[in-house]
């Protein structure tokens, strides 16, 4: 589908709009990349996105190019727009004797039109490409679809926007086929459909891509082809007792839709949210001031916990060598009950430990207020996490809920004790991979049992002590929870503020409870592996006791038989919302298939591919070895570029002087290099195991938009030479962004101030010859020291104070960058002077991905290595 319909209804641009790219990047031309079209006769002008249907020849009538295509159903007025090819557009062969169209495709491919363009990889990578939309999908003519039924890439992305039709072709191109699905995004606004219609055989939910037959009385499932009956009340709106237009139904108009689930979808009434906080109050934790900060954060967040129907329950347990329970009876003083016998934990009171949030709110406030003071001088050593978990399990019993464990010391008492493993000499050697695996099976078994009871774990690790994050973190990994890690935590330091804001945001953002996720695909496709934080309940069912917004689940797909012209992916998430309603969120996506290797390469989504490969590498590192994972990742990129060279370029065998890649994959080497240098997979011996596990957990759970940029590939901006309109509102509510700079120390000029933003932290690099007045206008003082820094806000309520405009613009920039990650992080800022602290300089060097460091080569060296290996054919 790539053209306006002939009926004059709302035009439908299948190509994702330019506005997205320009609003973020603020620039059109790539900077420095050599974009040499390699085919003769290529247009010499700068390539623009080929927008079908805009300014081209007027739409042709349906008959010309669709001979032999049976028309499905009555032509409905208005909405259903059958995909109509424009004359002269590249299309995919449909297996209907349209051989001349295949020929056209080949010709257009050779002509180097923007969509099928090959670029030469040398010099600097084109970083603006990361903000681009995924390649356009050209659906075959005759595909049923509706305006606004394109699936927004933030919900679901396929790695290949032109799926090969056979397994043989997929293996030849060596590209990974997979799906990255983020069923719940932060601040999403999803239409709700009234009733549920599903296919009889394959149980697919009705979606915008179905075809209606038999006068609109039957519908044909697009996954399995079965003809189903349309229910009698389909066109009838029972709320207003009128007939309504079938095509106005939410489930036929939108790719992402939510159904209200009736009783058949519940095994028990929707559960209320319940939170049990296991707060470490041992000596190590008291030294860091953690009990006070944590209690304060929870107290501040109590208002934002989902409590729409007043059923939310909260419990607090202080954990050191004993368990400290708090009995909060309404109308009475809260009491602390200490349980010293941790070998066989029994709850000290039959009720009022897990209290209703609204009823016992005042008692909770009192407990949390005094919590810090109570334990600030605690000398108890030891951490009875295992018994605490058992107690929490008893409390949450038949309800389920969330157990948030905040730890500053390893579990050393009671069941579930782990001896933290010494890691000093093993980092950087093959033995490091052993340290990444869990010790013993106690935590995995607990996670399995809890996922059955709909209990999710969040594990928060604060402080520097060795806590065996690998073992205890398994709790979060196998119950769909989150792993947070704050090694530099200390009360009173900025890190504690960062912890407060991120932890508070995390608690307030719980989106779904007692959820299951299932991905269905067209006949011929099979789901082979899943990546993320979940429990695999059955071959294709992911059990998620808790669903966090903005967390992604990746699926590996395999092709079993020859695929039809269009394949569909449908993800269904059955969950209980925070408001106590049982809902099913369904995301449907249509992706065309092709026989042509050129199309496959030029419609590959590099962000999705890089994210999937990163997740696979982390999974491999956790189950096999780190070295294997790095090796496999590098090899895969090599294979992809080598396959491209063999299949699609003119120098298909023999050496080529330059490395060529399709325009759609031009950033793949940079993304691979960035993944290899990320703390999750980095070689060398200076990444501690706890940091590595936390980084791996991030890579496993983040969607491409948040993972790639800024986490893997940070953004570098020059703050000393911002253009006049940068940092200010561009009239539509979004901030004009400055130009992205290459990620190399070369750009750091001594007279300049640069911002290196990587989502999880931000570094302000100050050159040695910077004008002190510029620094003053940026941060208020003429000199800054290296180290942690809180960026001040020197404007009064958004309007600039004279002399501090730069500060206001930078603050706008920081806010815009933070909103790109949906506010997930409150990044601490570090100031790095060019002649300053060594440690911060080392941190900065890790972020500059294009440069060489001890772990991996520089970008240009990497390209050269790949080119040589591909030329030699040895991959």
């Amino acid at each position, binding site marked *: 589908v790539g053209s306006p319909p002939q009926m004059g209804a709302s035009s439908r641009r299948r190509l994702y709009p330019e506005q997205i790219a320009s609003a973020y990047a603020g620039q059109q031309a790539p900077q420095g990349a050599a974009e040499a079209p390699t085919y003769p006769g290529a247009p010499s002008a700068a390539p623009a996105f080929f927008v079908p249907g805009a300014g081209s020849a007027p739409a042709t009538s349906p008959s010309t190019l669709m001979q032999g295509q049976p028309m499905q159903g009555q032509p409905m007025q208005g909405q259903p727009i059958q995909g109509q090819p424009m004359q002269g557009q590249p299309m995919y062969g449909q297996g209907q004797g349209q051989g001349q169209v295949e020929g056209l495709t080949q010709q257009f491919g050779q002509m180097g039109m923007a969509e099928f363009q090959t670029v030469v990889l040398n010099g600097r990578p084109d970083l603006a490409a990361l903000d681009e939309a995924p390649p356009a999908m050209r659906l075959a003519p005759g595909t049923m679809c509706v305006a606004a039924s394109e699936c927004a890439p933030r919900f679901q992305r396929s790695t290949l926007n032109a799926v090969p039709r056979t397994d043989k072709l997929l293996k030849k191109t060596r590209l990974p086929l997979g799906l990255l699905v983020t069923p719940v995004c932060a601040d999403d606004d999803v239409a709700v459909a009234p009733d549920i219609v599903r296919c009889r055989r394959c149980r697919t939910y009705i979606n915008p891509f179905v075809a209606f037959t038999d006068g609109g009385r039957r519908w044909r499932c697009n996954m399995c082809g079965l003809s189903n009956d349309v229910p009698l009340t389909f066109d009838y709106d029972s709320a207003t007792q009128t007939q309504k237009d079938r095509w106005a139904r939410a489930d036929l108009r939108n790719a992402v839709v939510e159904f209200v689930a009736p009783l058949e979808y519940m095994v028990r009434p929707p559960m209320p949210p319940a939170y049990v906080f296991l707060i470490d109050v041992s000596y190590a934790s008291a030294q860091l001031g953690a009990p006070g900060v944590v209690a304060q954060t929870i107290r501040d967040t109590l208002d934002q916990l989902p409590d729409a129907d007043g059923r939310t329950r909260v419990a607090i347990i202080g954990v050191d060598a004993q368990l400290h329970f708090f009995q909060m009876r309404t109308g009475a003083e809260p009491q602390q009950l200490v349980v010293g016998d941790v070998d066989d934990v029994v709850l000290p009171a039959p009720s009022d430990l897990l209290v209703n949030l609204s009823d016992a709110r005042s008692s909770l406030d009192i407990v949390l207020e005094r919590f810090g003071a109570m334990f600030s001088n605690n000398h108890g050593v030891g951490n009875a996490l295992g018994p605490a978990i058992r107690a929490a399990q008893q409390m949450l019993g038949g309800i389920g809920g969330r157990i948030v464990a905040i730890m500053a010391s390893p579990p050393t008492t009671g069941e579930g004790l782990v001896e933290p493993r010494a890691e000093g000499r093993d980092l950087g050697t093959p033995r490091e991979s052993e340290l990444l695996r869990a010790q013993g*099976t106690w935590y*995995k*078994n607990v*996670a*399995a*049992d809890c996922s*059955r009871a709909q209990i999710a774990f969040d594990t928060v690790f604060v402080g520097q002590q060795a806590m065996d994050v690998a073992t205890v973190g*398994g709790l979060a990994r*196998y119950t769909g929870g989150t792993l947070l890690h704050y090694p530099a935590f200390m009360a009173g330091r900025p890190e504690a503020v960062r912890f407060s804001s991120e932890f508070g945001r995390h608690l307030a953002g719980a989106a779904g409870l007692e959820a299951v996720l299932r991905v269905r695909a067209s006949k011929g496709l099979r789901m082979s*592996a899943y990546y993320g934080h979940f*429990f*695999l*309940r*059955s*071959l294709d*069912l992911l059990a998620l006791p808790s669903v966090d917004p903005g967390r992604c689940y990746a699926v590996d797909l395999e092709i079993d038989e020859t695929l039809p012209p269009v394949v569909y992916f449908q993800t269904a998430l059955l969950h209980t919302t925070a408001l106590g309603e049982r809902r099913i969120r369904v995301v449907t996506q249509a992706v065309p298939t092709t026989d042509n290797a050129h199309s496959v390469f030029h419609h590959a989504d590099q962000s999705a591919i890089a994210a999937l490969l990163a997740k696979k590498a982390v999974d491999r590192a956790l*189950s096999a070895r780190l070295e294997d994972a790095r090796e496999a990742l590098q090899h895969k990129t090599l294979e992809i570029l080598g396959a491209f060279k063999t299949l699609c370029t003119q120098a298909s065998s023999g050496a080529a002087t330059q490395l060529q890649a399709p325009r759609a994959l031009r950033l793949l080497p940079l993304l691979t290099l960035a993944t290899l240098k990320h703390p999750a997979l980095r070689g060398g011996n200076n990444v501690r195991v706890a940091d590595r596990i936390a980084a791996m957990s991030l890579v496993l759970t983040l969607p491409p938009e948040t993972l790639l940029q800024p986490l893997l590939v940070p953004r570098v901006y020059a703050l000393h030479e911002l253009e006049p309109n940068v940092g200010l509102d561009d009239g539509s509510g979004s901030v004009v962004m400055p130009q992205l700079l290459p990620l190399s120390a070369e750009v750091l000029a001594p007279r300049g101030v640069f911002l290196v933003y990587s989502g999880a932290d931000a570094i302000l690099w100050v050159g040695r010859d910077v004008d002190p007045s510029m620094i003053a206008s940026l941060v208020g003082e003429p000199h800054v020291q290296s180290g942690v820094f809180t960026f001040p806000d020197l404007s009064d309520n958004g309007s600039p104070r004279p002399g501090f405009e730069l500060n206001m613009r930078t603050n706008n920039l920081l806010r815009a960058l933070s909103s790109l990650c949906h506010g997930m992080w409150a990044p601490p800022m570090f100031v790095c002077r060019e002649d300053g602290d060594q440690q911060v300089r080392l941190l900065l060097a890790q972020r500059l991905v294009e440069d060489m460091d001890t772990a991996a080569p520089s970008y240009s060296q990497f390209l050269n290595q790949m080119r040589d290996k591909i030329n030699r054919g040895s991959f």
Partner: protein
Amino acid sequence: MLTDLECDYINPIDLVNGLNTYVMPEMAAHLLMFVVFLLMGEWFSMIINLPLAVWNINKVVNSRQFYDATEVFRTLPKHKRENFVKVAFYLLCFFYYLYSMIMTLVNESTDDIRTGSAY
């Protein structure tokens, strides 16, 4: 039970709990038989049981003998293959033991007839 898991008749936690109760007894029984063969001097029987005994001991030493609910789907084909091989092996061994037992009984009875003992 493993094919039940594939067909979604049973969930991994129940499967793992069910199967894990039989892992150690099976290994203990096999080890007992192996030791009996060793002590009784039945060298041929001992040698054919040797690979399996070594395999079991290796698993216990590396603590890999139990099924893991979180990883069971990933290792499912491997476990299925392993179990098929063990079933085939046990079946062949069974027939061999049966044959040996019958031969022993027959030889005993012919010996008795020849030596004329009172049975």
